[in-house]
């Protein structure tokens, strides 16, 4: 599998290269059975998989089960995975598939609205820093909610991908088959535009 970028190449800082090298090493070590490397991957990728599972509308308890199942499945597939990009793709796809399987099993409650942003509480407490942060979040939240659902899902997941430059391929693999999924670049562009309109002075 080759990794080609599509004009969304991020600025390569030295630290990013180091991070990339470290991730590649962890994948190799995990494949040869190093528990510590595997644990490192769990730390890196689990926050992303949580968002993947929750974005399908699963409740929190089901999402936890699904994420654990994905990791368990990985144990028997690790020997086929050689790069962090392939790992990202595999984990996202497997988590989604498992999430849909659980949803389809149907014996769970009705799915939650995956749009958790509607429920986000307003921060109305003290410190100036908090207020500024909250204000920034509020603006972004409003802009985010104007996006089409698939862009929302994609950006939600991409935001948690450990290496931004792996996300393009990974997420496209996770998208519904037969459709040209939205790209990260296009969705970000829309979000930026929505921020510009909604923000007024900014």
């Amino acid at each position, binding site marked *: 599998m080759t990794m080609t970028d599509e004009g*969304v190449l*991020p600025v390569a800082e030295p630290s990013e290269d180091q991070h990339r090298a470290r991730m590649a090493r962890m994948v190799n070590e995990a494949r040869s*059975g190093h*528990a510590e490397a*595997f*644990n490192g991957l*769990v*730390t890196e990728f*689990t*926050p992303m998989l*949580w*968002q993947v599972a*929750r974005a399908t509308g699963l409740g*929190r308890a089901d999402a*936890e089960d699904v*994420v*654990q199942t994905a*990791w*368990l499945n990985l*144990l028997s597939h690790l020997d086929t995975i050689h790069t962090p990009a392939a790992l990202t793709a595999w984990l996202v796809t497997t988590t989604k598939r498992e999430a849909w399987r659980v949803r389809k099993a149907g014996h769970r409650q009705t799915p939650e609205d995956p749009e*958790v*942003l509607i*429920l*986000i509480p307003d921060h109305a407490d003290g410190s100036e820093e908090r207020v500024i942060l909250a204000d*920034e*979040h509020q603006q*972004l*939240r409003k802009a*985010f909610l104007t996006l089409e659902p698939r862009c929302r899902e994609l*950006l*939600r997941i*991409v*935001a*948690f991908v450990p290496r*931004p430059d792996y996300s393009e391929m990974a997420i496209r693999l996770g998208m519904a088959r037969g459709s040209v999924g939205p790209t*990260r*670049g296009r969705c*970000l562009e829309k*979000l*930026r535009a929505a*921020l*510009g309109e909604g923000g007024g002075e*900014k």
Partner: protein
Amino acid sequence: MIPDDASLLATVRELFAVADPMPADLTERIRFMFALRQLNAEVARLVRVDEVRQGARGTEESRTITFDSDSLTIMIRIDSGAGESVRVDGWLAPPQSRRVEMRMTDASLDVMADGSGRFVFHDVPRGTTRVIVHPPDGSPADATGDGKSGPAVAVITPALILLSIAVS
């Protein structure tokens, strides 16, 4: 100022980390699951929990829990006093001497079951734990992870939560 891709995504990440935070212990539980899996163990099923009995002075409680696997039955009795830890007495059936471990998420305790299958942990900290019965000496758990178990494998119970007993 127009935010670049990286800072925009960072803000999206912050937003969802607040709106829908991952359970704090999720990664820890996955690591725990992996550690257990490396033992290539049979997972025992919980088959029975007896009634909670009041101790003589009303400050102690004990409950007996039975787990079953293909190769072993594990029975444990948990005695909770008012202290920080609990005492766990256990029996293996069929009776046999095996190394028995209490595996917490960040620590573990080891004892040997005697020839009659009996074992005792005097001080087990409260919290989440599992009981692991290791393979007999000289037959380490299959480390290849190919799922083909040898004649004797480790047996692991589901997680137990050793709770504090409210003492008035």
